[in-house]
């Protein structure tokens, strides 16, 4: 069985967010990039576990990104992927990302494609579903467990107040979340092996985005706590209604 894991690079969670070009661009200057945690901790690690269990033969990685994504993909290779493909373009439009991956993957015969449930920068959470559609594969989203036996996947999903278990035939795209596996730390042998693993760069296909970001705004700065006299309930009620807008 052949698995493809989609890896996205995202700003480190401690990044101070700033915008440029009249608030139309995310300013990446001085920003540390990491592997999207959902891609790394759940999609990639589960793929590696399936390979270690002898269920999968190959785990390849794909990312849509420019050359600055290479340290991130090299880390993913250090964790244990076989080879990586970098599609040499950048986009924050989920359709472009899905279509670029589909363009590469359609002729590669993958049985299972795993991705994180969302990337922690734009949080669209739709790339996996779009990819499944473009590859004409089945799709299960937001999975917290995945097993494969006899060409059939058993997938658990958290639903309101409980859990559902689905079965689904391969080929299949699964978007993964917490519960799927435990985060790993790349070991020294993996890091050294990553040095020589193939990292192919492929030219992007001509694909137009479906959305463009018109502008960004930061949330309003936190204001201080307003103290209200304990005997002045009317003012409290009025403020909860007019300022906090919770009643």
């Amino acid at each position, binding site marked *: 069985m052949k698995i493809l894991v989609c890896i996205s690079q995202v700003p480190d969670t401690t990044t*101070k967010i700033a915008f440029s070009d009249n608030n139309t661009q995310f300013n990446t200057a*001085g920003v540390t990039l990491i592997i999207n945690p959902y891609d790394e901790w759940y999609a990639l690690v589960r793929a590696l576990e399936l390979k270690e269990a002898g269920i999968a033969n190959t785990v390849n990685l794909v990312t849509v990104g420019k050359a600055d994504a*290479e340290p991130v993909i090299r*880390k993913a290779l250090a964790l244990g992927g076989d080879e990586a493909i970098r599609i040499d373009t950048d986009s924050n439009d989920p359709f472009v990302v899905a279509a670029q991956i589909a363009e590469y993957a359609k002729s590669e015969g993958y049985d299972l494609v795993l991705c994180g449930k969302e990337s922690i920068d734009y949080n669209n959470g739709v790339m996996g579903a779009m990819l499944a559609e473009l590859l004409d594969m089945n799709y299960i989203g937001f999975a917290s467990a995945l097993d494969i036996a006899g060409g059939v996947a058993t997938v658990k999903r958290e639903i309101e107040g409980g859990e559902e278990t689905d079965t689904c035939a391969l080929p299949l795209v699964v978007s993964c979340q917490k519960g799927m596996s435990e985060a790993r*730390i*790349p*070991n*020294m042998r993996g*890091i*050294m092996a990553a040095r020589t693993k193939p990292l192919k760069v492929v030219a992007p296909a001509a694909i137009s985005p479906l959305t463009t970001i018109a502008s960004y705004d930061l949330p309003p700065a936190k204001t201080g706590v307003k103290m209200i006299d304990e005997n002045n309930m009317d003012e409290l009620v009025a403020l909860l209604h007019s300022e906090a807008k919770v009643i």
Partner: protein
Amino acid sequence: MEAQAKTALTGGAFLIQPSDAANTFTPEDFSEEQKLIEQTCNEFLDKEVIPHLLEIDKQQEGLMPSLLDKAGELGLLGAAFPQKYGGLGEDFVTATIINEALGGGHSFAVAMAAHNGIGSLPILYFGTEAQKQKYIPKLATAQMKGAYALTEPNSGSDALGARTTATLTPDGTHYLINGQKIWITNAGFADVFTVFAKVDGDKFTAFIVDRNTEGLSFGEEEHKMGIKGSSTRQLFFENCKVPVDNVLGEIGRGHIIAFNILNIGRLKLCAAALGGAKRAMNTSIAYATTREQFKTPIAQFGAIQHKLAEMAIKTFATDAALYRTAKWIADKEHELAAAGKPDSETLLGAAEEYAIECAMLKVIGSETLDYIVDEGVQIHGGNGFSDEYNISRAYRDSRINRIFEGTNEINRLLTLDMYLKRAMKGRINLMTPAMAIQKELMGIPEFGEDDAPFAAELKAIANFKKAALMCAGAAVQKLMMKIEQEQEVLMYLADMVMDTFMAESALLRAMKMQASNHEHASLAVDATRVLIADTADKVNHAGKNAVNAFADGDELRMMLLGLKRFTKTNSFNTKQARRSIAAKMVEKQRYFF
């Protein structure tokens, strides 16, 4: 301008030769792979060590060995061991990066360093093939844990004064070791010890002693001021029966093992201290930006900004000096390997070449860390004095670093002692530059201004070196053999050399960052200018105290004038430079260099 050195300097030669920034290795030169290794170490600490510091400090049964096992599984312990002994064959710079990154692990860092350094290296470098095959692959994975037993109740700094004896049995098959060792790190769980004892009363010799050897017993855990999670016990040897095959190296040559291993240990202590310093600094930045007094985060106050910036400046310079030296050692190791030296001699030979730098780094690293944890507690105010806050643990854990691996006093003395011995042996020519300085002092000072980039800073560094050489040269001439009794003078001279080494390393790093348009180049230049301004005062202060101790009359007057001339620097607004550095630390919420 003096000609710039194109090749690596020989050990100690930085003092008499200029260095070229472009050929100086700096932390900005780490490869992507080295950065990934650093990240692995940090992830390991964040996931496995930091959340369990309390249990580690309480010495929860089995916890420390299990952490070493996990580090072993990740390949962090044997990274620099040769591949044929189960290691990964990484170079010395990478090994230093690992030591630095894991150095923020409090007691774990100590256990790891003792296991990986003094606990393993004597066997790796001095063992027979059979000894290496038996122990090193297991030490590389922590399947076996290592320790090192040198210190005794009455022999600490004076290691060769050991009283533990080893006597050959009449049948010639075993040595019977008798004596006592103290302060043995990892003693509570180590499987194998490198033990030093005297054969026939005076032949200082190393032995490999397995934990379960008959006649070896252990004291209770010591109750220590800091590094409470690191196991420290006494070892008691009562007719401890060690097979003759366990003699390590040659009989009577134990001092070669004890002292050569220490060179590497000193550099690695600097690395570990640096790792601890960066974490303690980040903790302090986070506190200073969230703690409010007078309705203002305390990081907005100049007094706190000064402390934060000073932490960053010292760390920037220590980092620069450490990796500058680590690369020299790595290059020398490759050079010795290319010249056909066996594995066992390449790293030790390389570390011996830079033994002066290793001794200085030990002092620099431990004192940088001590400054940072001390001011870190201060920034935390009353909370810093509470065990609830990790900075108090960092403060306690830091203190030992100025004591072990040779006290900072011993390392200061050694710095000068090694210079003088090397000069006498003709390994380094201190005489010619010292004479040139004497001549320069007689002449008219040069007033010309060179407006090339960094000309003023390079000149300041060259002058600090002249000040150190002038004072050291005069001390040697005047005091001759008595200089050994004048430890105070030697301490001042060592400080002059060390502060200059640190300032020069920082300058070369800043110049290199500027040349590559590094994001933080201008702040690196600010940091270096602050350091140079402070170093000028420190060199002047130490120099005055040194020469006043032995010179008088015209000679004293001339040297005091010389010191004034050699420590004159341009005016510089250090307050403003420190504020800029602190502002970036607050913005980034971490040490950013």
